[in-house]
């Protein structure tokens, strides 16, 4: 009886397997995930550009860095930095207070000039030019910053200004910190790093303000080696960062008129209590990933927060990301994920490019960026804080279907199966014995 049935069963299972194979091949062709193109951020092949502003005002003569004068320390450091310049870096030098020795403030405060244009550096010439500098005049930092921004020119790549100074600006207006903020707000990807050679509070505060306004760093120079290392590090950093290129965009306050964003990195400005809205079309089976950073580039009230909301076109909230804090920080960030769902509320199917899905219209998701920041008294509220938004679209991830196909794992499983086997064996044995006994009795 057994032998007669077996071929049939085998044929049946073979047919079933074939059917399954065919069906899966037809239906379940590997779903092609829409590769988000990072088109918005394609880096231009532009050399990293660094402009160094050297303070050559009269006070640089003071010999207080391990017994050497500030200017000699700066000159020595610059020599080393110029020697170590990476080949691809466009490097330039601007001086302030180098030429006008007089006491006329108006004239002294115009005293900033380009010592060496930003470009491929002739190292010997550059070093000679630096060596001839003699501390002379005033400290028009604001004007020098503007000049350096012009030296660096317009472009998409991040540019760096390295400011080496020993004194507080004595030429305001323009206030150098305001100038820095104004340059940052132009969206020309400018970072100002400041190095202070004097240690008085007012200078430090001003240089910190300039650095904060542009996302740069501040270093209080105590030793010649520290100065050399830091400037080298900054020049090096411009090499790493110049390719990253957020696209300037301007969010609106309403979803209807909001700019449409594709995957990439964007920059914008947001004022206190302002809402900025952007639109992202999301296809069925796609997951929207967005993150936002708001820079705290001025003196803020103690507590701060940021909120990123994803809403539907009708204003229904879909998901939100939020963060808050109360300590010293540079940016406050948050992010969110969201994907189109089905009737169950979860993404249950992997994205496929079948005709059905193509017919489905894109869902337009509005990203609303708002902040709960407040300025300290007397702080400028215009322009707004720098805002950085990244948008990405990835394949949506379906909810897992539970444990792996009825398979188990662990010692408890082994024990249970063994006991069950033992029990079955015992029962089978007892039944067999009982049957024999019954059969024998009869």
């Amino acid at each position: 009886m057994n032998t007669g049935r077996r071929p049939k069963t085998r044929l049946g299972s073979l047919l079933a397997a074939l059917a399954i194979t065919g069906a899966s091949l037809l239906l379940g062709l590997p779903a092609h995930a829409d590769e988000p193109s990072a088109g918005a951020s394609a880096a231009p092949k532009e050399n990293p550009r660094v402009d160094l502003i050297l303070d050559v005002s009269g006070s640089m003569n003071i010999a207080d860095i391990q017994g050497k004068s500030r200017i000699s320390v700066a000159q020595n450091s610059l020599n080393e930095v110029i020697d170590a310049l990476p080949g691809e870096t466009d490097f330039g030098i601007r001086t302030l207070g180098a030429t006008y020795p007089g006491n006329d403030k108006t004239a002294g405060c115009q005293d900033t000039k380009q010592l060496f244009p930003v470009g491929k550096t002739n190292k010997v010439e550059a070093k000679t030019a630096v060596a001839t500098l003699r501390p002379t005049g005033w400290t028009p930092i604001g004007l020098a910053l503007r000049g350096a921004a012009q030296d660096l020119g317009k472009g998409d790549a991040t540019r760096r200004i390295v400011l080496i100074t020993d004194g507080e600006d004595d030429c305001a207006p323009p206030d150098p910190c305001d100038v820095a903020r104004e340059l940052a707000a132009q969206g020309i990807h400018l970072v100002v790093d400041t190095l202070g050679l004097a240690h008085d509070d007012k200078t430090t505060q001003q240089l910190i303000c300039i650095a904060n306004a542009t996302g740069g760093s501040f270093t209080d120079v105590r030793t010649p080696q520290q100065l050399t290392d830091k400037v080298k590090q900054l020049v090096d950093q411009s090499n790493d960062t110049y390719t990253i290129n957020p696209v300037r965009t301007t969010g609106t306050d309403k979803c209807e008129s909001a700019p449409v964003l594709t995957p990439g990195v964007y920059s914008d400005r947001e004022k206190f209590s302002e809402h900025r809205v952007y639109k992202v079309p999301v296809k069925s089976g796609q997951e929207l990933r967005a993150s936002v950073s708001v820079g705290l580039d001025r003196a803020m009230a103690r507590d701060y927060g940021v909120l990123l909301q994803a809403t539907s076109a009708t204003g229904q909230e879909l998901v939100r990301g939020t963060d808050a804090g109360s300590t010293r920080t540079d940016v406050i960030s948050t992010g969110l994920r969201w994907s189109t769902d089905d009737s169950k509320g979860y993404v249950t199917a992997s994205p496929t490019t079948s005709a059905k899905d193509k017919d489905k219209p894109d869902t337009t998701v509005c990203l609303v960026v708002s902040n709960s920041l407040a300025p300290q008294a007397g702080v400028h509220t215009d322009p707004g804080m720098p805002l950085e938004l990244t948008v990405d679209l990835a394949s949506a991830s379906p909810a897992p279907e539970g444990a792996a196909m009825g398979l188990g794992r662990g010692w408890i499983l082994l024990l249970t199966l063994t006991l069950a086997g033992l029990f079955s064996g015992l029962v089978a044995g007892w039944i067999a014995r009982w049957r024999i006994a019954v059969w024998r009795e009869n």
Partner: protein
Amino acid sequence: MRTTIRGVLAALALLPALALGAPAASAAPPSPTATASGTAAPATKAGTSFLTAVNLSPGQDADVAVSTGDYLYWAFGASEGQTPTVNLSVNLAPAGDRHGPQTWTVEVFDGLRRRQSCTAGTQNATGDQSATSLTLSCTLREVRTWAEPWSGDPLPGTYYVRLSVTDAPQPDLGLAATAHLHVAAKGNADNAQPEGGTLKAPLVPPVGGGASTAKAAAPVAEKEHWYTGWFSGWNSRWYWTIGGGFLAALAGVLGYHLTRHPRGRRPGHYGAVPPQGSHQHGSYAERP
């Protein structure tokens, strides 16, 4: 009978080896703790923002000269099942130059710049004016294989570390200090939760710092086959289940033998089959 028992015992002894060998067999992603000779030299840089964060390859440390008050960003990759721990030590500026206590804080964010909670570790440390160094650490939650889009659970992809000075007297900002970063991770994909869950694309920023390293560290998306829905690949569950089935079969045979072959041990008791043929004949003969 004796040989059967011996066989069962041998099989029992073998099984743990089989089961324990299973995790090693499944492809485990390279863990950041690997201290192989191929480990990259420590990074000497740190980024200044999320976009410019410096990528750390698995097992790579960072040793950076910094200015007090800098915001330092690094990015590392973590994969499912891992529990990353970020360890930092900071050598503060010379005590003579400082004017008061300093507080340093380490924060960890995921690839979407969402703040990640630390489950253990000293997230911020304050050193008074005489302190020379501070140690900070942050242990994340275990990285999950999948999470609802609405949750903030840690997922495979990029993680950002931000080291900053959160409180210091203003004159102390800008002083030279050094920071050392080490990222360790324990655990592997084998016990990652939830089981069967996958994130189709790791949480990696579209561009900028962290984009490349995390892509390298994150598990490569598996190719889809026609059998993908039916067979999810070898995992330790297969070994456990097959081992369990084997044990059950042996135990079944053992149990059966225990009841069927009491020959000579329990003679004559309730219808036992007498072992010898002649005796058998005799007993039949005795019947009326």
